[in-house]
């Protein structure tokens, strides 16, 4: 063994062993590969489209559609354009996703808390609810709610009715629709004033509590204001509102509001399925709060109810929100299963009917995917913002 040691600076390693160089080389290689794949895909698609004489471009968006859609939130008829169809579908997707998220959150929180209930039977029922529903595919639940529940419902002529104003049949749930007459604007204004008032009252109550420690019945007062103000306005204006009652005419009910079986089953399936996941998230969030916190709260003399509301939930929320976000995302994406049961959502009317009538698959799928990607981005951003607000501020 020669003990000769080179005392000069170590030689620079050869390029293929220099981590910086290899990393750069590797990255360039992967990037060019990815770009090449993308280029080939686009190139192929263009070539194939051209070779097969398929129309391309977005001109079709302004041509009239010629078909009808059962449920629309915005004005639409057969002479509206395909662009309009896109918006109709998008609105329906947003509606069912939004309501689904609300319902799933409420149900999920109830079930999550119920699983931790000290009441044995309630805890067990919640457990069965969660374990059953999260282990059965959503599509199956959707079909179940649609076909299995639809079948036993009566025909419109034999509809189940409550007070001759609410009718349940296999055409849906028909309810009276409020018609706002002139002067109703005042009631809306009262409602808005009430909401603003509550906002300021809460700030005031919080400040007072921080200063004096006295609590103010915020919830009760808020309820009082939000019901009382519009009611007062209504009394002053003399109830400028009438009801449009549904009525059986010919084949079906006319007038009123309707919740179609398609909408209901989609909403039920989405929110019940997602609520079983949210229940688990809520449960683990609550369990993640240190038991010492509860004990400390009891030691301070807080009642169990208040402990849950003021101590446990705020801390649990920090653990709950990130996974909750992905559940909201899932629910929104899962609303696309509407296509299977005739609810006119974006995938059904735009990526379905419109695609078939115009044949412009590439453009339509690109638009549809962008919408879902955009929605995902929007929900993540909103929830991240909320999460940042709720996050533990450490000193």
């Amino acid at each position, binding site marked *: 063994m020669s003990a000769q040691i080179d005392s000069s600076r170590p030689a620079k390693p050869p390029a293929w062993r220099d981590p910086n160089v290899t990393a750069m080389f590797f990255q360039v290689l992967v990037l060019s590969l990815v770009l*090449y*794949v993308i280029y*080939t895909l686009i*190139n*192929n698609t263009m*070539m*194939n*489209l051209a*070779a*097969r*004489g*398929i*129309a391309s471009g977005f001109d079709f968006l302004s041509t009239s559609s*010629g*078909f*009808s*859609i*059962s449920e629309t939130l915005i004005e639409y008829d*057969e002479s509206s354009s395909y662009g309009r169809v896109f918006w109709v579908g998008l609105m329906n997707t947003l509606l069912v996703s939004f309501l689904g998220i609300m319902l799933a959150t409420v149900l999920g929180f109830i079930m999550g808390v119920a699983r931790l209930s000290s009441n044995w039977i309630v805890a067990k029922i919640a457990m069965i609810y969660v374990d059953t529903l999260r282990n059965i595919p959503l599509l199956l639940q959707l079909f179940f709610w649609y*076909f299995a529940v*639809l*079948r036993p*419902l009566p*025909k419109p002529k034999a509809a189940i009715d409550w007070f001759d104003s609410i009718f349940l049949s*296999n*055409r849906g749930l028909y309810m009276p629709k409020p018609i706002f007459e002139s002067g109703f604007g005042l009631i809306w204004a009262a409602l808005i004033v009430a909401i603003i008032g509550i906002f300021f009252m809460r700030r005031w109550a919080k400040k007072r509590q921080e200063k004096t420690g006295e609590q103010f019945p915020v919830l009760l007062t808020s309820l009082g204001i939000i019901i009382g103000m519009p009611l007062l306005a209504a009394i002053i204006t003399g109830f400028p509102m009438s009801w449009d009652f549904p009525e059986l*005419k*010919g*084949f*079906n009910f*006319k007038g009123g509001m309707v919740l179609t*079986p*398609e909408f209901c089953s989609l909403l039920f399936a989405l929110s019940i399925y997602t609520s079983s996941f949210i229940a688990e998230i809520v449960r683990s969030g609550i369990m993640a709060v240190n038991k010492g916190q509860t004990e400390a709260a009891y030691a301070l003399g807080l009642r169990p109810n208040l402990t849950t509301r003021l101590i446990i939930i705020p801390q649990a929320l920090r653990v709950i929100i990130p996974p909750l976000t992905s559940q909201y995302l899932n629910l929104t994406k899962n609303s696309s299963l509407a*296509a*299977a*049961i*005739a609810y*006119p959502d974006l995938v*059904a009317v735009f990526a*379905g*009917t419109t*695609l*078939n*009538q*115009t*044949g412009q*698959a590439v453009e339509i799928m690109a638009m549809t995917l962008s919408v879902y990607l955009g929605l995902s981005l929007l929900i993540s951003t909103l929830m991240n913002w909320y999460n940042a607000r709720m996050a533990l501020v450490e000193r």
Partner: protein
Amino acid sequence: MKLIKLALATAITVTVASSAVAGPVLDKIKQKGFIQCGVSQGLPGFSNPSEDGTWSGLDVDFCRTVAAAIFGDASKVKYTPLSAKERFTALQSGEIDVLSRNTTWTETRDTSLGLNFTATTYYDGQGFMVRKDLGVKSALELNGASVCTNQGTTTELNMADYFRKNGMTYEPVVFEKADEVVAAYDAGRCDVYTTDKSGLAAQRTKLKKPTDHMVLPETISKEPLGPVVAQGDDELFDIVKWSIYATIEAEEMGLNSGNIAKILTNPSANPDQLRFVGKEGQLGQNLGLDAKWAYNIIREVGNYGEIFDRNIGPLELPRGINNLWSNGGIMYSPPLR
């Protein structure tokens, strides 16, 4: 295993082969040795899978006709069941070679969708089916009804036109798959089921008690149904078109799967018959096919009348306008010469 193979294949094609130009579909068909034929997911009389997975029906028989013409063997077909929504995209993308899925021939489809309609194999029209106990006798009494139908069909458009024209309202309930339409109609979700009349007759057999339902007399549209190919391959287009005409021509000439073999050995047959079976002339050569292409079609699948009776007969639909022109219908083949 196949996944690995595919990953390899993808890697190789992506790196080695650059942009490949869509070659003629016919070459691809001949190379792989079978036709990929798009059919409906289950419509009795047109394309219906049996329990062991074999397909039968009018649409299926025209796929077999093309296979018989190209390969001399009607069994060289693979079927891709498609929903109405998927069918054109599948044909445009090259997922299937021929679409034979009771598809209506319209101008838009023939042009901007990049499709070529070959010939009509069944002249149909849209109708309405209702429960008998509803007491409806005419489509004009359907104001306010809920109507179930399939997504992405001309039916959806015709229905909108018809109701608008007659100043009536309706509630469309539009499903992606025909099975779901039947299930929803059967569950009472809709008062009316609308599609092509042949389709109604076929779907009626899928209901619990077919006799409880009736098809209304009105026919609200023209629905010429037939096989479709993608634009860009004229040879395949010709072959599919003339395969269909060959079955019609054979019926007119009185040739069928039973007697056609005799023509081959009968030296005193008519010249047009000899031309048909490939003994004379060069019809096959013109299409780039075997001289016995038409003979193979009739021997393996039968003439139009046989195909019709075999598949549509059980639905108890009259032959009507689908009869030969010489019998009062409008089935008419350009001369094979």
